[in-house]
Structure formats: structure tokens, C-alpha cells
């Protein structure tokens, strides 16, 4: 049995005021896959991740993580195998120092004190953030906060990593570092992003959401080079596939 498999079947979700956000999403993400979820604002990307992490429960349809169906009763079990990096790092870092924040998850998993500290330090090292360990999160730059937030989630040793806009707010250098970092993770990854170049670099597969439905699902290199498909779904070609604004040369998409 693998915990690394994520299955969504006819997933629907509506907020209490009746706004339908997801209307029948079906997808299967298998062990070690790295999947980008792209789509215009309001397409349902963030909601999909909130459902997969058990923060919200679907109004219809089913989610299975590994062999466990997600429900109010199983959500605690599922959270042990699913790690979620939220869009705003500020919402995630709430302990007085980065190390204590990284220790929050392992402590809740009931690890012994010595192992908690080791796990927290190890994961901070994995994201190249060990030097931040004694700093209070509110004193960090956005890039450092993002690093700390990812480290804190890795400390829970999840099988599946969910990330909501991981490259938002980052300067080009931190963004590049993050892309390199994500490439080193062996986890099953589901990344909701507007950063299509990041999707090209990190994710072999892309799911395009449009108005709460799956508009396309396939290899990233193919989907993100399809100008017509992207335009129809409120997206544009990744920057590197667009024409050069200086020399006028065409991008590699044409």
C-alpha cells in the first residue's frame, strides 16, 4: 500500500453561500509524480488543495490518499501523510522562532523530544535554512519565510506535498533556489501556481482547471506550449516560450 497516491473522483465543492468552486474534478496522481495545477484566478486551485489537505470536505465526490478515503473521521490520519505549504507563509509560521515552528508538526506527531529537534533541524538543513533556526519568523524576508515554511512542513515527513503558489512573493534569486529545491524532493507533489515557468521546470504533468472543472490534463511540455488551450483558460505561454522582446526572435513554442 502506498500513501503517495492521491485520487480525486468527481470532486465537487460549494461554499455555504452556494458559490460552486469545484464541479466534478477527477484526477489520479501516482507515487512520486509532480503535478502542476494551473488556471485563472478563481478557477478553484486553492480550494482543491484545501480539500486535499482535509481543511475543507467535499460536498460531493471522493478523495483517497493511498487507500484511505478522506472523511471527517480519517482526516487526522491523512494529515500525517499529506503536508501542505500554504500560500501565505505568514499564516503558517506562528511560533516564536523558526526552529520551534519546524518542531510544531513533529511534536504533534508524538515524536520523542530529542528526535523532534533532530527532525526539525534536518528539514531546515534540507531547505538550506538552518541559519534561520533561532530567528523569529516576523523578522524574516519573504524568501526566508517561504524557506522556513517549507522546512516546517518537511519536518512532518509527509509522503505527499501540496503547495499553494510557492513562488509568489519571491525575488528571482529565491525563486530560482526554490525551483532547484523542489527538484530535489522525491515526494509526490501537487503544486498550484501561476508561475508556468516553475511548472515547466518542476512538474512533468499539468492539470488545467477552468471554472472548477479539469480543462486539460497531460504532459506539462505539451499543454503549456499550446497557446490556444492556455488562452481559452485565462492563461498565457510561459515566459520562456514567448518571443524575445529585444531581438524579436520567437520563443521555443513556435
Amino acid at each position, binding site marked *: 500500500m502506498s500513501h503517495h497516491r492521491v485520487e480525486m473522483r468527481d470532486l465537487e465543492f460549494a461554499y455555504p453561500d452556494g458559490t460552486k468552486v469545484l464541479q466534478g474534478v477527477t484526477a489520479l496522481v501516482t507515487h512520486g509524480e509532480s503535478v502542476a495545477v494551473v488556471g485563472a484566478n478563481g478557477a478553484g486551485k486553492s480550494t482543491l488543495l*484545501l480539500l486535499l*489537505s*482535509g*481543511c475543507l470536505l467535499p460536498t460531493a465526490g471522493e478523495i483517497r490518499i493511498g487507500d484511505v478515503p478522506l472523511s471527517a473521521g480519517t482526516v*487526522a490520519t491523512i*494529515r*500525517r501523510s*499529506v*503536508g*501542505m505549504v*500554504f500560500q*501565505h507563509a*505568514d*499564516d*503558517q509560521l*506562528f*511560533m*516564536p*522562532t523558526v*526552529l*520551534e515552528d519546524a*518542531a*510544531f*508538526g513533529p*511534536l*504533534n*506527531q508524538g515524536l520523542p*523530544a530529542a528526535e*523532534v*529537534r533532530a527532525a*526539525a533541524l534536518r528539514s531546515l538543513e534540507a531547505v538550506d535554512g538552518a541559519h534561520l533556526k*533561532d530567528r*523569529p519568523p*516576523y*523578522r524574516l524576508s519573504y524568501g526566508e519565510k517561504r524557506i522556513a515554511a517549507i522546512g*516546517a*512542513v518537511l519536518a*512532518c515527513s509527509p509522503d505527499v506535498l501540496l503547495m499553494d503558489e510557492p513562488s509568489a512573493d519571491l525575488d528571482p534569486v529565491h525563486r530560482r533556489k526554490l525551483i532547484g529545491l523542489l527538484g530535489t524532493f522525491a515526494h509526490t507533489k501537487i503544486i498550484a501556481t501561476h508561475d508556468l515557468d516553475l511548472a515547466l521546470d518542476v512538474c512533468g504533468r499539468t492539470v488545467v482547471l477552468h471554472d472548477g472543472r479539469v480543462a486539460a490534463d497531460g504532459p506539462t511540455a505539451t499543454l503549456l506550449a499550446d497557446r490556444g488551450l492556455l488562452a481559452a483558460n485565462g492563461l498565457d505561454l510561459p515566459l520562456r516560450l514567448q518571443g524575445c522582446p529585444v531581438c524579436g526572435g520567437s520563443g521555443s513554442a513556435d
Partner: protein
Amino acid sequence: MGMKDTGGRTPAHVFDTLALADSPVHRLDPRVKIVATLAFIVAVMSFNRYELVALTPFLLFPAVLFSLSALPARPLLTAVCAAAPFALMVGMFNPVFDHRVIGHIAGIEVSAGWVSFASILMRFLLTVGAALLLVATTGMYRTAMALERLAVPRVFVLQILFVWRYLFVLGDEAAALNRGRVLRSFGRPAGVRLFGRLAGGLLLRTLDRAMRIHRAMLARGFDGTVRFLGDLRLRPADVVFCGGWCLAFAVMRLVNLPRLLGQLLTGAFS
């Protein structure tokens, strides 16, 4: 309403930052600091309402902590001043209603009301000062951790941590909202109506933000029990600190040291 833009830095931010410094007081086990501070507060509050002179030796405790901790005075004084109106309100009518003359200073009659008013202010200064020093040298997280180890109910500890965390959220959101207002009001002050709307907006924003934080906590396995990293270890210095101060408070409470000193001096001269 011309609120100053502090970049969302609240007193909570300031105190948590102060607690990151290193000093002999910072290094003490938070449990002994809590116990000593509590003993101090109990001793100070147990005097009768007209006592003023016998309270003065108690200034030693905050004074020693302050000088050993090497904290900047400004944030502490700001916090004391922020809380001062409450003490003033409690004591302000004493001089009005209590006219009994209980002594003379340089030929001027001193009424019991003024003495009790001064006593209230003194006690306020001592207790609030000591509590602020505790938090400024320990941090709320470690204070809460020590409270939990001292068998304070977990619900209570959780409340403290959440309220503290909410101050951070409130500061962030209020700063963002106020900035949005200031940048588009071109120097015009916010009227009562606008202020009301801002306050309502602030509440909704903070609730929203609090929900997101709660979600992030749940996603990392939070189940209503707060668990702390690291253990507290009592060193000989901690025991000496706690024992020494508790003994000192007992002596200061039972013996009126300033009067004794006065008697000794007058005795020596006569």
C-alpha cells in the same frame, strides 16, 4: 485618527524580541522567574492600603532584574504608561473622599486619601513592572511553557498563547488597513463613522486570518493540545535566585526596613 505606522509592530512583537536577548536573567529557568514574580506580587499586594514606606524596599527586585537583564528602558516604560490609566482610575477618587489627616510633611497636612492613592500607584508600578520584566526576559512562549510545567491547566495556557498570537495578527492587519486609509485620505483624519467601519473591517480581517492560521495548525497535526519543544532544567543558580528572593520578600514584608533604618539612624545620632 492619526495612528502612527509602526509596520504592524505591536508590544507583543517588541516583548518577544526583547526576550531573545541573552543575560543572566534571560538564562534563568522561567519557572523560578514565575514563582519569584508571583511571590513578589503577593507580598506587595498584601500590605494595607495606607502603606507606602514599607513598600519602597520592594523596588529592589525590579531594579535588580532590570539592570542585570540589560533591557532598554523605553519599551518597558511605554508599556507601564499604557497600563497606568487603569491604576489612576482605581485610585483617583481616594483623595476626594478620604480627608482624614494622618500626618504632616514639612508642615503640610497629608490626608489618608492621598497616601492610599500613592500606595495604589506604587503597587501598580511594582507589580506591573515585575510582570513586564518577566515577559520581556522570558518571552510569552517560554512563560506559557513554564506555566504548563507548573501544572497550570492546559486550557489556560492555550488561551494565553492564542491571545498573544492574536495580538500579532491584529497588529499586522491594523497596520495594513491603516496604511490603505492614510495613503488615500490625503491628510484628512478619519471620522467616527469611518473609524467604525475600519474597526469592523479589522475584526473580519483578523477572523479570516485567524481561520487561515488555524487551518495551517491543523494541517500540521494540531489537536488542541499545545506541545513545547525543549525541556526546562533547574540549575543551582535558579534555586538560589528563587529561594533568595522569596526569603528577601518575606523579610521585606515582615520587617518595615525603612522605619528600622530610620530608628537606627536617629538612635545613633541621639
